[in-house]
């Protein structure tokens, strides 16, 4: 492996007295996992620097090795892994250092934040004690001093009532709060470097914004450098100074964040940028990258890891692995044989993708003809035992919408908003407490037993998890034959129908004998879609169908869905928490909050001119894969958390976090918000919003941009 050294650009603010050499220097890092059956090189030689105080984003998909790199820096890669190479922290070599020596570095000079806040904290220890422990490991002070210090840290990261809440246990906090506790632990001893491994992947988008801001606070307080590992290009665009893209265990492009996003020279990066949906330009066609990310076991250094998926692949690409070479831009390098030849790697051709026409619609009612799916006043309650009392959770409260044939209605919202309950109730995987669901006029809720089973064929669901949505013991043929068998499809015609379904989703009919584990995630989702289409349904309910897929694979499935919906004139209910994806695929959008629809209308209207304050905040929180836009955007800070569905606020559910409520209303108006649930009212004959005073949204103060 060549010595691919990436030097940091000019120092922004040289810290007092420290020399010009970088804080962290990684050279030729190789991480190998040894299992009884084979050895896997998860990281195959990576080199990079991190300067003091800078933010480096490491971006990659599954199998890229980004998380392994992050944990290897701390020496926490586990017993089955071996590291080779050099990792120098301020000159001190970490590879091969004793556990004792590393113990002095961990938590003091380097701190780490892990992905899942649910499992990162010890469930049987109070939050305060866990922060206190972090302090006491490296500093000697009395118990009382450590206690005070831990409270100070919790306040810094934004935990309200820190002194009281320090005595609480992790399960009493929400995900966002838990992650803040982890951040407090990380900054406890003023580390020089913080490594955050997918810190917000498991969180809602508004919570993500809060946590990333808390991380920023931590960074400012400790002057630490930050390595931000993520698969989300939007997050990186807004927060990183420099970016390193990893693919197949190596760095395939590094550089300044602007260079990477606007002037990339690596086909993978460019492919990635062209395939992700963007909230600010929902009409941009998605150009998918075929195939899926390679597994580390299959890479041996004899070819470019991206060759199998690259549109511009040549003989050279399949016979030798390109090193990182310099391209224009400070410290900008790309691993492609043709990186320096700009003409050779043109922009991806959007004409390759045929974008189906948008179906325009008005607020509540679809455009033409009768709706194929009509949901009226859907309500779902269930009872829960909490704190010794039986309480009712109003998961869904009075939700109504229609969907026309060929139209996609996107349902968005954050955790606990009720969108999953809506989808399950509509498909009758769970019973609804109240309301009507009709399919082309036939009442779905009124049937049971055999008639229900027959009606089910007309509305099918596509599920989220490609790994548990297909029975691992059944072959593709069995999986697709089951719905046919259940709908009494003539035996003789089944094979032909199965072949037809497989072709429709872009898979070869010869795959019928294979089993799910032989397919990639994207292919499995296609199988799930094929299964849903088997009974020739009129409506498709898609519950987070691409959330579990790699970013580069999502585009293909999204495009497939759009075409299928249009060609078969299906009504589609698309549920997702990823606003960019929903924006791209949906003709109309409904935003949910605490069980109610707060805004519904044509996608274009809702996204370009949102009316409801929650919608505004939601859209503002979604990071865009565009560094300049991210730096200059105004960000709407939504403070606090979603109230518990056990105890929703009276009247308008959003009033506890609403900017209008806080800043623009008289006391009399506030009483109305407290007492009366707002109805969905059309706004300027475009979308409808559930707000009493939508026109009183406060004019934003000009200073709140991230560049400050």
């Amino acid at each position, binding site marked *: 492996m060549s010595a691919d050294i990436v030097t940091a650009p000019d120092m922004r603010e040289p810290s007092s007295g420290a020399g010009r050499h970088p804080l962290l220097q990684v050279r030729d890092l190789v991480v190998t996992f040894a299992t009884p059956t084979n050895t896997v090189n*998860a990281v195959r030689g990576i080199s990079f620097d991190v300067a003091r105080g800078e933010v480096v984003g490491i971006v990659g998909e599954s199998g890229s090795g980004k998380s392994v790199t992050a944990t290897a820096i701390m020496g926490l890669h586990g017993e089955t892994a071996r590291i080779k190479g050099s990792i120098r922290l301020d000159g001190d070599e970490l590879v091969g250092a004793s556990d004792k020596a590393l113990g002095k570095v961990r938590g003091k000079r380097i701190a780490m934040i892990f992905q899942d806040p649910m499992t990162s904290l010890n469930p049987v220890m109070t939050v305060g004690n866990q922060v206190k422990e972090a302090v006491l490991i490296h500093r000697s002070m009395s118990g009382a001093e450590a206690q005070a210090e831990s409270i100070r840290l919790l306040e810094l990261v934004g935990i309200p009532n820190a002194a009281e809440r320090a005595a609480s246990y992790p399960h009493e906090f929400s995900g966002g709060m838990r992650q803040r506790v982890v951040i407090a632990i990380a900054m406890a001893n003023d580390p020089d470097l913080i490594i955050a491994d997918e810190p917000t992947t498991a969180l809602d988008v508004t919570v993500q914004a809060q946590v990333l801001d808390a991380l920023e606070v931590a960074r400012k307080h400790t002057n630490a450098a930050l390595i931000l590992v993520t698969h989300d290009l939007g997050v990186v665009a807004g927060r990183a100074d420099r970016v390193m893209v990893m693919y197949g265990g190596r760095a395939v492009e590094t550089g300044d964040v602007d260079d990477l996003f606007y002037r990339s020279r690596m086909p993978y990066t460019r492919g990635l940028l062209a395939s992700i949906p963007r909230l600010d330009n929902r009409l941009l066609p998605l150009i998918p990258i075929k*195939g899926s990310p390679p597994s580390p076991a299959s890479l041996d250094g004899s070819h470019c890891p991206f060759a199998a998926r690259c549109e511009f692949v040549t003989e050279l690409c399949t016979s030798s692995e390109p090193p990182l070479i310099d391209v224009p831009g400070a410290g900008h390098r790309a691993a492609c044989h043709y990186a320096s030849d700009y003409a050779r790697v043109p922009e991806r051709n959007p004409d390759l993708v045929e974008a189906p026409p948008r179906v325009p619609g008005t607020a509540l009612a679809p455009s033409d003809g009768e709706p194929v799916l009509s949901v009226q006043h859907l309500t779902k309650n269930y009872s829960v035992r909490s704190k010794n009392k039986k309480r009712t959770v109003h998961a869904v409260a009075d939700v109504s919408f229609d969907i026309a044939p060929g139209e996609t209605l996107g349902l968005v919202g954050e955790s606990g908003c009720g969108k999953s309950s809506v989808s399950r109730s509509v498909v009758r995987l769970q019973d609804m407490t109240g309301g009507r669901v009709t399919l082309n006029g036939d009442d779905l809720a009124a049937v049971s037993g055999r008639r*229900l089973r027959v009606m089910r064929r007309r509305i099918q669901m596509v599920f989220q998890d490609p790994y548990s949505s297909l*029975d691992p*013991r059944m072959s593709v043929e069995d999986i697709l034959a089951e719905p046919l068998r259940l709908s009494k499809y003539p035996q003789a015609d089944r094979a032909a129908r199965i072949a037809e379904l497989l072709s429709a989703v872009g898979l070869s009919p010869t795959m019928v004998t294979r089993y799910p584990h032989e397919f990639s995630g994207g292919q499995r989702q296609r199988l799930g879609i094929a299964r849903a289409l088997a009974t020739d349904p009129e409506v498709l309910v898609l519950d987070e169908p691409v959330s579990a897929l790699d970013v580069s694979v999502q585009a293909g499935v999204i495009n497939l869905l759009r075409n299928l919906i249009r060609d078969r004139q299906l009504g589609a209910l698309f549920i997702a928490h990823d606003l960019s994806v929903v924006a791209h695929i949906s003709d109309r959008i409904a935003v949910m909050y605490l069980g109610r629809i707060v805004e519904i209308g044509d996608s274009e209207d809702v996204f370009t001119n949102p009316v409801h304050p929650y919608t505004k905040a939601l859209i503002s929180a979604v990071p865009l894969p565009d560094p300049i836009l991210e730096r200059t955007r105004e960000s709407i800070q939504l403070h606090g958390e979603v109230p518990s569905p056990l105890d929703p606020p009276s009247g308008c559910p959003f009033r506890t976090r609403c900017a209008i409520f806080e800043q623009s209303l008289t006391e009399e108006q506030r009483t109305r918000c407290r007492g009366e649930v707002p109805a969905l009212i059309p706004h300027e004959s475009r979308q409808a919003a559930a707000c009493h005073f939508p026109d009183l949204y406060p004019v934003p103060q000009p200073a709140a941009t991230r560049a400050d």
Partner: protein
Amino acid sequence: MTVTDPSLSLVEAAVPVQGRSRMPAFLRRYLRNRVSVAALIVFLLILVFAFVGPMVWKYSFDVFTDDNSQPPSLDHPFGTDSSGYDTLAQVMRGTQRSVQIALFVALTATIIGAVVGALAGYYGKLVDAVIMRIVDLVLVFPSVAVAAVLAYMSMGTETSWITIAIVLSLLAWPIVARVVRSTALTLAGTEYVQAARGAGATDLSIIVRHLIPNSMGTITVAVTVLTATAILSETSLSYLGFGVQPPDTSLGLLIANAQAAIITRPWIFYFPGFFIILIALTSSFIGDGLRRALDPRQSAGAGS
């Protein structure tokens, strides 16, 4: 479907991984575990020993020879006891009886337990609550005690091996039910079960076509574990005098008869004990090998 649809161009071959169907992959992993395979072979040999042996061996277990208290020799490889019974013949017969009971218990208890556990796990709520209370109830009692009570009090010295086997099965099924229930609970929540329900499948169809096949792993392991447990239970019971009754014999009974003679005629004590240990041990190893072969994490490499 437009001709230029790019998703058509994404048609590609599935990555061929470890063979075509599920079965060979699992078998291959199992065969890699040499200890478990060795145990399987030994177990099969024991079965041959127990069931074919008595037909082939010259001495019968219930006919005494003229050689009393002989140590192991070529004529009597396991020696003889004080009455002249050939120990090898007795051990063969005892093994046969004990293995018979153990396998009966393992299979019966697993079948009952699997069905009950699957129902509890799939339906949940009231069905689950009722079944689990019954399970708890059975497990409240020490099984040796209850087995002794039922077997003896029902038939006294006339107890046949079937009675013992049935009694032990009735006491063992709750253990299987518990384990299968938790597997069923997980499976019932999977998306493919929901998809089947969404396509209009009946509960029975889901249980038979999805739940049971995906629980086969757990169930198979349960059979092996239960074999080991059952042989220990039955021999304990027979040792106490409440299990297999003379003139029939069991390994436990042989040991009971041999305990006074351990110094003078150690061979009639050690051989039966050795066989009990061997049967229980090989069943456990087979079960352990099966469990490892079924655990997908074994073949997974590094994370992303």
